[in-house]
């Protein structure tokens, strides 16, 4: 695994920059991961990141758009406003989880 240093914290990431070990994640690290995407985290961002973390614990998967809407109460337009261009994968990256994938 390549190691990278974000906000002074050294972590293991995959080729696309997603954390490979969630135990290395911290809120401070998330600020750094967000900055690399050009995003400054606000309370509205954190509401989404916290929902992803709680949901991942329950489902072992990053929630999709529909689940974000229906279960997280987060409208799609808001997701795009907060995490432009691919909101789910960006939010997943900052929350320290893998990007949503298919089987292959």
């Amino acid at each position, binding site marked *: *695994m390549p190691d990278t240093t974000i906000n002074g914290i050294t972590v293991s990431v*995959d*080729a*696309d920059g997603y954390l*490979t070990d969630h135990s290395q994640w911290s809120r401070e690290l998330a600020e750094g991961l967000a900055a690399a995407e050009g995003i400054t985290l606000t309370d509205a961002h954190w509401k989404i990141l916290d929902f992803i973390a709680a949901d991942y614990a*329950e*489902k*072992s*998967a990053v929630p*999709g*758009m*529909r*689940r974000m809407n*229906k*279960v997280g109460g987060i409208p*799609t*337009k808001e997701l*795009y406003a907060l995490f*432009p*261009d*691919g909101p789910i*994968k960006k939010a997943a990256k900052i929350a320290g989880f893998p*990007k*949503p*994938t*298919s*089987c*292959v």
Partner: protein
Amino acid sequence: MKNILILGAGTAGTMMANHLRKRIDHTEWSITIVDKEPQHYYQPGFLFMPFGIYSEEDIVRPKSRFVGDGVHYRDSAIERIDAAANQVLLEGGETLPYDVLIVATGTAPAPDEIEGMTGPDWRDRVHEFYTFEGSRALRGALDKWQGGRLVVHICEMPIKCPVAPLEFAFLADTWLRERGLREKTEIVYVTPLSGAFTKPVASKILGHLLDDKKIDVVTDFNIGHVDNEAHKIVSWDEREVAYDLLVTVPTNMGDPMIERSGLGDELNYVPVDKHTLQSKAHANIFVIGDATDVPTSKAGSVAHFESEVLVENILSFIAGKPLDTKFDGHANCFIESGNGKGFLLDFNYDLEPVTGKFPIPGIGPMSLLEESRLNHLGKMAFKWVYWNVLLRALPLPMIGHKMTLAGKQIPDGVVRPTAAH
């Protein structure tokens, strides 16, 4: 007499009925299976029907034929599960009490979930191949095809057989070439994910297939609506993809009965323990196949492996013993890549598809994650295996429910499974 009640006589429900009837004490237990739909479809065949590779007759059999002796077959629609009262209400008002309930009601396309999808273009320029009717209608559309923009599209994940739309694009490429229509056809593959291939090892090895076949890929496309007048799909971030023929995979959802019963998540899938398949809400409800929320593929092979685990766990449950048999997310799928070739995937919750030999380590004869003629022949031979081995709940020689690491080449950097569960 105690009752085991199985809802759904599709792939998963039929296999469970046949496992249980061979193992249960029939003096103490009665097994009943309920389904409203009389026909059993070999669903992998829906991919082939539009191209005329399988006929309609190849893929349809009566459901009741596959449920063996010792199981009561009930031909009825299900109104809802009353979990608090341990009973199921059938359409028409009859109730069936249960001691153990197995939910195997699957998943189905729900095109109405996307604005405009079932508009004037539906079954005209907009098609799907996840139902018998849809696959038949798409065959008609392809027969008339003279060229233009063929858009293969996934609405949202998860979907049944997640690689089927990619296989459709590959088979379409071959089919168009054979008819001299490929030069007149643009093929565009549109996905809500970050690529057509998303797993690192598979992307590296198979990513070239799309370039080789000149299939354009549009990624991160979350559909907002279908514009029937302008014949285009429009994403939430206002990107547009025009189509002459749209072959979409609509949103997949669990049975509406699950929602009426208050047992499902936002897509009507039932939350279960991903290793035991026991419902998280009710200890005497178990769920198998596409109806669960487990994070592995919705596929027949998964239902097959799950059935081998679930029969053990149900026998343990009724004996008052702990549920010691654990499902690891094992899936094994033949994938068509066009030109009479295919590749084979073998993976589970903890290991992505990698290369190697299967099922005999080092020998094969199948190769994992590599295009070969033999893998294609394996997929073609699978139809016989499905009707004659899988549905009858007979074991597949050399292929157990636990995925094996033997014979697999795991590259550096790939997360290796930790201890067995």
